[in-house]
């Protein structure tokens, strides 16, 4: 067996996918080639370390920690809703008040503008009377 073939088959060997005959050829090569044996050893160490990590378990208090955090989050959420709800209600009330006051003010301004441009009726009547008097004087 050549080193390149050993390398190609290495992963299959680690995955346990080789037949007994193929495995035996690999083992023979490994005994004759220290470099390939070192490479196999290195790969086995890597996968062994993964296996070791797989066996690490979480601490026993983790469940309680998660439940405590969940309860805390819910509490914070409720507080936030409560505060936000109050602020929201105040904001709506303030908006309505501003709208009413604004409406009144605008109405007042429009009214003032209209009365400013209009000629008072009394003055208009006086003017008509004056014109009639002037007309009478001219005729006489």
């Amino acid at each position: 067996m050549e080193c390149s073939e050993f390398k190609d088959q290495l992963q299959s060997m680690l995955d346990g996918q080789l037949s007994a005959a193929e495995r035996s050829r690999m083992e023979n090569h490994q005994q004759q080639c220290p470099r390939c044996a070192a490479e196999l050893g290195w790969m086995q160490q890597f996968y062994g370390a993964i296996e070791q990590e797989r066996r690490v378990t979480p601490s026993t208090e983790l469940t309680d920690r998660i439940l405590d955090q969940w309860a805390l989050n819910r509490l914070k959420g409720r507080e936030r809703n409560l505060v936000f709800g109050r602020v929201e209600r105040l904001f709506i009330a303030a908006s309505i008040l501003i709208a009413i006051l604004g409406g009144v003010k605008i109405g007042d301004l429009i009214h003032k503008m209209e009365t400013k441009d209009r000629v008072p009726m009394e003055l208009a009547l006086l003017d008509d009377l004056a014109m009639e008097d002037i007309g009478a004087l001219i005729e006489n």
Partner: protein
Amino acid sequence: MEEQELIRALVAGEPQVFREIIDFYKDKVFRTCMGFVHQREDAEDLTQEVFIQVFGNIRSFREGSAFSTWIYRIAVNASLNHLRKKKRLLFPTGFGWWTGASEEKERTSHHETSQSPEEEMLASELSELIDRSLATLPEKQRIAFTLSKYEELSQKEISAIMELTEGAVESLIFRAKKNLQERLLSRIKN
């Protein structure tokens, strides 16, 4: 309570089943997170984050679909987000893979304290080796490899989590192993 009953009760918003749900899925979620972060403390924080997300978003879970698929997906996303944040924080000095320097000097061991200092050091070095090797893989290869190796999920289960075909998952795992072998063996040569 059976798993399906537990999920139905959870979806119905019954908080008394939360503890049972955590106990049922805690190890699976923790192992998945561990496969990405390789540190017990980080994996526990992520497990906590995953369950908070599960409880908070239970209404968006579609009954009839697999709960485990949904929870694994949340665990993978939370882990990847954690790694992205960490990468951003480490970027100015994070070239340990190339320089051979440790990325995190204050790395804490995730192994049991009953180990001897030598064993702890070796375990920590191997943990760093796994971390660095997996970090070089493209994201999809990394996810498929991690779910296959740490959770020993079938290609069918992984394909459901990653929303890919089984063939695509098989190819991702094959390429991930090939890439890892090349990178690890090139380290011996150097």
